[in-house]
């Protein structure tokens, strides 16, 4: 019994000595600021900053290699806190939100062929440029939804990707994988968007989509400052649309194909309805 205690205790003591020595000798110097920065980062490890995880970004910021405003999930608050830690003036970042600029789901847009392959938009795009007739529309196979680290993208049962602007932190991870480049980053301060990604001429767009932009200019006539039309496709001019005077929303009802949408509608008035009949 005694020798067992002694020998185990001895082994433990030697190990403790060795560990203690190693801890001293090989100590990794942790920059206090790095730890502090890591503390204020959201810890999502989403990679939007371009570094492997929040730790990598914290180290890079602490070393002064990169600016403190590269963390979109953190938002302006985090930027301000990091700026305080490293002692620089915070630059105001314009928070962004991703938008799928397409409403052409299975019911409203036609398909070139019936796709039966894997649920991956990138794979589908390789087969004759994707099953959707429209060259820019959402394929609805959910590649972006699978990638979004924040669960902000859902697929409708009519196969269209929709981004929840309350959950989207603007990390941009969905933008590049989408083979149709139909996800755009927009300033959070503007909630009105032209939801179409087809540069085809109006007559052609009408043939394959009920809700496509036909470049009829009506939105631009209604709010000349807030819209631009380029290459047969209208888009909100986000630089000016932030101004209350731009009148970006006055064009919404003017669009004949209803492809302008306000993602931030005021709460709908309580419908004037009879109360549901009581179960007997």
């Amino acid at each position: 019994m005694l020798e067992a205690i002694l020998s185990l205790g001895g082994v433990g003591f030697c190990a403790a000595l060795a560990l203690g020595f190693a801890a001293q000798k090989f100590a990794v110097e942790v920059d206090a600021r790095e730890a502090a920065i890591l503390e204020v980062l959201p810890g999502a490890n989403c990679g939007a900053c371009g570094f492997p995880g929040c730790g990598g970004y914290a180290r890079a910021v602490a070393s002064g290699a990169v600016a403190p405003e590269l963390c979109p999930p953190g938002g302006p608050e985090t930027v301000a806190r990091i700026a305080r830690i490293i002692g620089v003036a915070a630059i105001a970042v314009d928070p962004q939100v991703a938008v799928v600029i397409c409403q052409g789901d299975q019911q409203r847009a036609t398909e070139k062929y019936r796709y039966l392959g894997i649920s991956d938009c990138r794979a589908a795009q390789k087969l004759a440029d994707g099953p959707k007739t429209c060259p820019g529309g959402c394929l609805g196979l959910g590649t972006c939804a699978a990638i979004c680290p924040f669960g902000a993208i859902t697929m409708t049962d009519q196969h269209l990707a929709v981004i929840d602007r309350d959950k989207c932190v603007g990390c941009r991870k969905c933008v590049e994988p989408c083979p149709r480049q139909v996800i755009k980053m927009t300033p959070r301060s503007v909630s009105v968007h032209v939801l179409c990604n087809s540069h085809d001429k109006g007559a052609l767009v009408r043939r394959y989509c009920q809700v496509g932009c036909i470049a009829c200019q009506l939105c631009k006539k209604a709010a000349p400052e807030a819209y631009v039309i380029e290459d047969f496709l209208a888009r909100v001019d986000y630089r000016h649309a932030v101004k209350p005077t731009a009148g970006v929303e006055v064009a919404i009802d003017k669009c004949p194909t209803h492809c302008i949408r306000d993602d931030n509608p005021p709460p709908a008035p309580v419908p004037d309805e009879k109360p549901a009949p009581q179960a007997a």
Partner: protein
Amino acid sequence: MKIKRFPGGLHPPEHKSTAARAIEPCSLPDELVIPLAQHIGAPAEPCVVIGDTVAKGQVIAQPRGFVSVPIHASSSGVVTAVEPRLHPMGRPLPAIVIKPDGRDAWPDGLEGGMNPLLVDPLTLPPSRLRDMVRNAGVVGLGGATFPTHVKLSPPGGKKINTLILNGVECEPYLTADHRLMLEEPERILAGIDILRRILGVERVCIGIEENKPDAIAVMRDACAQRDIEVIALKVMYPQGAEKQLIFAVTGRQTPSGGLPMDVGVVVQNVGTAAAVADAIIHGRPLVERIATITGPALVEPKNLRIRIGTSLRHLVAECGGLREEVVKVIMGGPMMGHTQLSLDVPAIRGTSGLLLLDKNAVATRSEGPCIRCARCVSVCPARLLPTTISAYARRDMIAEAERFNALDCIECGCCAYTCPARIPLVQSIRQVKGAILAKRRLS
């Protein structure tokens, strides 16, 4: 003697109902749409403009780079457009449109070719022969359309000692090579002599599957005077794939990531050999090919000699039109062919067949979960684990898929064909192969 074959593979129903139908010429269509991209490698560069009058066999587009070949007018007429047209790959790609004048005339009143050779081709130096093959636009006619002159130019240090002629035609439905071997063996043999001279090889074998006993007999007969082996192979898809054919014929295993020339072999399709003979002996460029137009939706399936650029619609009309609604149109064979969006697409150099399927021939059951039956593993001729690679592919686990040798997949489709859960295995593997190559290009 044991009948030769490769490991893995399967034997889908053959459906070779056109095997007994002699090759027929196809009528001249109203319009020829000749795409500039008809081969692997850089597309050709047009050298005619709208309004030009062209003769049959005239060069209308020049090659760009070494891995590229010229394109020729497949009939005489007037160039009416140089513009993107729907290509068999499913998107509009640049093409030269010719309105035939109906005379189908070669230049300067020549018959059946441009400048018939007046000397014995076998006295010409290999480099000259190789240039002639290239100038005639010859590409692999089995369907891969790899420029033939490139395959005939092994880099220094690679010693080629065996030439294998591919007369396997393992894809269901297709019978074009079969008919060619039966009807025109002398063209093939003339081509073999030239290929042999270019490569300087001793051993020449022709691999033919056992389901074509008549072709085996004809070729054996024709080869009697020559030192050429005709090898009967077990009926097994994908025997016509290069590495599988090499293994079946010579027992040599092409290393992972390697090429046939790494094991001293060059494989050429029998149709390509015939095209080489035409090119050298008659100076006739590749302006037509033999294709099987078939399928249950067609009234009268046929083997046709078609001009490059003929629309699929014209080919269907040539075979008596459609019997019923066509649900799926496939260019090439059912295993590796390309599904078409429309019949208004031209036949190109790689069009070995056209398959018109009705609703009974097209299954559209959706996929279920993998039941771990390992059927895909036992049929994979590349000896891969399709289910594992596919699972990695679908989770974007590119490095893992690469470790399981995804790049060795030959996309034969055996795994997806056999999978009882109908998992699109090949599509996902093809997807991850693209991702692996993209990653390699980046690093």
